[in-house]
């Protein structure tokens, strides 16, 4: 599975949806993911890709990790993987 599909699978699991119900332009809010689901999704991403996601629930917009949509999260994860490889 590529990064994109693995991220979608993680989000789908936390949102209790099928991967086919997730589209790239959706926000996590619109998928019904609450704050605990978000923290669990980030943990799953870190474990799955062996990366550290900079995220503080107190200032999510300042975390430098774009969570605005499924597509943005995929790009951010790809960025973290590239950083790790560099």
């Amino acid at each position, binding site marked *: 599975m590529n990064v994109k599909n693995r991220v979608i699978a993680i989000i789908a699991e936390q949102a209790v949806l099928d991967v086919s119900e997730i589209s790239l332009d959706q926000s996590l809010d619109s998928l019904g993911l609450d*704050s*605990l689901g978000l*923290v669990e999704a*980030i*943990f799953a991403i870190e474990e799955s890709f062996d990366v*550290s996601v900079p*995220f*503080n*629930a*107190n*200032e999510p917009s*300042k975390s430098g990790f774009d969570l605005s949509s499924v597509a943005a999260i995929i790009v951010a994860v790809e960025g973290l993987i590239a950083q790790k490889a560099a």
Partner: protein
Amino acid sequence: MRRVVITGAGTVNALAPDVAGTYAAMAEGRCGIGALDIPDKDRLLVQIGAQVQGWQPEAHFSRQELPLLDRFAQFARVAARQAVDQSGLSFDGELADRSGVILGTAGGGLGTTDDTYRAVYAEGKNRVHPLVVPRLMHSAGASHVAMAHNLRGPSFSVASACASSNHAMGLAFQMIRGGGAQVMLTGGSEAMLCFGGIKAWEGLRVMSQTACRPFSLTRNGMVQGEGAAVFVFEDFDHARARGAQILAEVIGFAMTSDAADIVMPSQDGAARAIAGALRDAGLKADQVGYINAHGTGTAANDKTECAALTQVFGSHASQLMISSTKAMHGHIIGGTGAVELLACLMALQQGVIAPTIGYEAADPDCALDVVPNVARQARVEVALSNAFAFGGLNAVLALRRAP
């Protein structure tokens, strides 16, 4: 119903190993948060905390006692000794049978658990210290305080996460008020600043890696502390009959449950607890002068707490002095309400309002007088102390100047 007064106080926390030192630190707005000094710190993202500095257990306990005492129980024992000494009480005969101890803690002997897991899992040991269980049990602090002072009445520990101490003190208050005890030692203790304790908190993504800045627009999370505070709660008639020095009167208590979310606070649950404490104390909103806020420095708590205060106090909210002392002593989790009650005692006894330090910029969602950065002189008749725990367990105490 009996009246209940406080006739002794003791503490160990990052600011000082006693009450006088803690008052001095709070009055000067000193910060007890610094770089953590614990094993494997380099594997932690959060590397700051309010640790008790220079703690020497062997200065307080014999070689026979030490193996029985986790750090949280050590803090409780030392704080309790100071409180009993100040009260001038000694417990024997009928008084011993009518006196007890209720202490709050969220983690109990977490350091003992952490060390023991490390030994058996990481180091592959097949044998643990024989006294692991009596060291780690949450009630160990209460038991050791009872043993040290011969308190033979109602004694147990209370765990309600960050509200543990307030629940403990509220129950002690109700017990004396209802005639179930004459004297109660009460407060709370926590020693969670071990590798496993901090690692667990890191996972929630609510900890700050820089500073605790309650109510400030720039706040970015909580910072953990450790320590204990223990008070002597006493039947007013008993205290008066023996000519005891009274530090303050406990006049009300209320507890509520949000019944809503395991981490997100609710304005309604907090407001019902604050209003309940006022009602229990027979107070009108405008009689309150100072509130020691829960004020964790998280985005969620601080704005919810301010909204709840505004809801309960209406136009008087802007007249209140509200401060969070967590920016100085850290969030002491199950012991925090007890250490914070000291700020209420200082306000009532000395007319000094502890500041909210680390305050950088106003947050429109927290537009109340949070006594930013610098302590203030003010005569206060009534003070409240708020505690709102994860899982929506809320407990608020009301205190009045000594009669």
